[in-house]
């Protein structure tokens, strides 16, 4: 089975180690991993801001870059949803878009849904983890249980967090177009956050935003992308 990793621009720049972790994990599970080097950004920032004409060429080139892959796996729910749900809307009538949508998965959904993995290892034994459900993973892709299953399966303790399924306030351009509201939303997440060792999520954007807010507020909580923790789950 050949998987092409779509690292996504934010993870490429800000959470590069998540990509390394995803590659190692997939390879350890017997998957052949490729990284098509022509990839850049899925086009979501433009699409969500209303710049569909700007998003279209990026969507088209993504279709080309990943034409050959059996599966495309992203360590991001939001970008995976862009490809799965919004490319077909953005490029109506495109068979290639429908085809890629079908082959595209967020990492944890791929591990559980396609590879049938339920237990990666014991590497997170006793670790107290706060899991933030990225909105697009949760509500657009329906990825709710997969990450929790994999984390718990590796011995992690998921701390109960009343705002776990609430939006963190990132929202791409929203975070700078309406910074005060965006920060107020982050503050609600932070204020309800229980004691934990690490905060994780599928999405680099949410993590960048929450990590920034946590450090600004002087909360010394470690933030790590889900892929990094899943590799830790496997490798210990």
């Amino acid at each position, binding site marked *: 089975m050949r998987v092409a990793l779509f*690292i996504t*621009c934010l993870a*490429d*720049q*800000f*959470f*590069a*180690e*998540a*990509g*390394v972790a995803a*590659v190692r994990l997939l390879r350890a599970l017997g998957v052949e991993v490729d*990284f098509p*080097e*022509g*990839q*850049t*950004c899925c*086009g979501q*920032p*433009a699409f*969500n*801001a*209303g*710049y*569909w004409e*700007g998003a279209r*060429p*990026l969507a088209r*080139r993504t279709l080309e870059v990943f034409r050959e892959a059996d599966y495309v796996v992203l360590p991001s729910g939001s970008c995976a949803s862009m490809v799965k749900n919004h490319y077909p809307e953005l490029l109506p009538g495109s068979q290639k878009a429908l085809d890629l949508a079908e082959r595209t998965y967020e990492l944890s959904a791929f591990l559980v849904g396609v590879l049938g993995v339920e237990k990666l290892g014991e590497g997170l034994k006793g670790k107290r983890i706060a899991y933030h459900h990225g*909105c*697009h993973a*949760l*509500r*657009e892709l329906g990825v709710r249980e997969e990450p929790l299953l994999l984390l718990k399966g590796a011995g992690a303790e998921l701390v109960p967090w009343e705002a776990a399924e*609430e*939006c963190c*306030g*990132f*929202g*791409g*351009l*929203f*975070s*700078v*177009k*309406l*910074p*005060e*509201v*965006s*920060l*107020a*939303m982050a503050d*609600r997440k932070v204020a309800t956050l229980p004691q934990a060792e690490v905060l994780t999520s599928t999405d680099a954007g949410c993590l*960048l*935003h929450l990590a*920034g807010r946590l*450090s*600004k507020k002087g909360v010394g909580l470690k933030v790590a992308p889900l892929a990094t923790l899943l590799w830790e789950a496997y490798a210990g």
Partner: protein
Amino acid sequence: MRAKAKLYPKEAARLLREKPGVREAVTGATLHFDRNRLKAYAEVPIAEWRERAKAVKDHALSHLDQYLELAEKRLKENGVQVHYAEEPEDAHRLLREIVERRGVKRAVKAKSMLTEELGVNPLLASLGVEVYETDLGEYLIQLLGEPPSHIVGPAIHLSLKEIQTLFHERFGTPLDASPEALAQVARKVLREAFLTAELGISGANFLVAETGTLALMENEGNIRLSTSLPKVHVAFVGIEKLLPRFQDLALFLPLTARAATGQRLSTFVSLIQGPARKGEEGPEEVHVVLVDHGRTALLADPEAWETLRCLRCGACLNACPVYRQTGGHPYGYVYSGPIGAVLDPGLLSLEEAYPLPYASTLCGACLEACPVKIPIPKLLLTWRHRAVAEGLSPAWERAMLAAYRRVMESPALYRLFSKALRGLPLPQDLLPLLRAWTEGRGPLKPSPKPFHQLWREMEEGHGR
């Protein structure tokens, strides 16, 4: 109502800065409503209810011409006087006529967002009519001279302390008066108004075409009194409120209650079938004003018409994490929150409502809450796309998105950008956009090496 939606970003920021108590009050109340809704939804086969409700509304909207004619016919048979108001001025003309003919000095009003749209209160005031909002929340904000900040809970942004202070100043109640004591004071004032008003004004939750029945839902009894005690009752009904059959109420009344407040049914449901008949008590005149005010145009919009399914339950406001930070005032128009963000551009114009479709992170919580499955995130994207096409977006944003596109279209440029991000000192204080990020979150720190570089290193190591 004059729209001030253009000021949304500034007003939202100002409110968060100057009135932090609003965020606390609104977050608390909306979370409470939202949890109750979830519980109430879980008690019934909600997926099926929502699908059926959507289908009934879509049917009614796509046959609106027929149902309007039928409703008019049945209403008239019931002795109701039927009027059409395309614009607020048409409604004003009718009210002026009634006020003059009946010598109206005092009017009692049941909560109605549509009358906010139409500017009914300022009009009546200009005619010398004393207007009493009789919904308790609505009465509070009338005393304060504020517009409603929530479709269902208009005073959701107020704390008990603010209400205690208001009543202390107005009615001399003690500053620590209990909510019950405050309600008693309001009750006394409003009872007097109910008994003396010549005119009662209401909206309607639904208008049943086959029977000409107005359906109104409430929890306080003030709608029942406003529509039955005064000799004249005028109901303003948006044309999208039509339901084809009486039996549709069996679905829509409980669905609306569950969505709005998590109740199985509202405490009161009034089904109004016309003026008092011989030997009955009740209004001598009942008028139904069917209001367009932009709705026909919205219905003809193939990409945005679904907004008209809205039941005005407020469930999307309660579910919205953006709305929860500020309440409805910064949105600057009658309808706020997610539904306002997609309805206001349709009712006003996109230019007038420009920032509202951007008042969302596209988190999708509104869609999950909506009892008639209005695809709000998709509609937000549609309005954003139109805003860009119409050139309404700011210059900095257009420039940034153009630069972004150039970089992302070329892997070579993307790699160069990647180097610059690490090699060059970021002008963190110069770019307003970067400042908007870093002010609240600290400096952006890229990984020491981007993944695409780590990949090459891995592969080189791998190959050897």
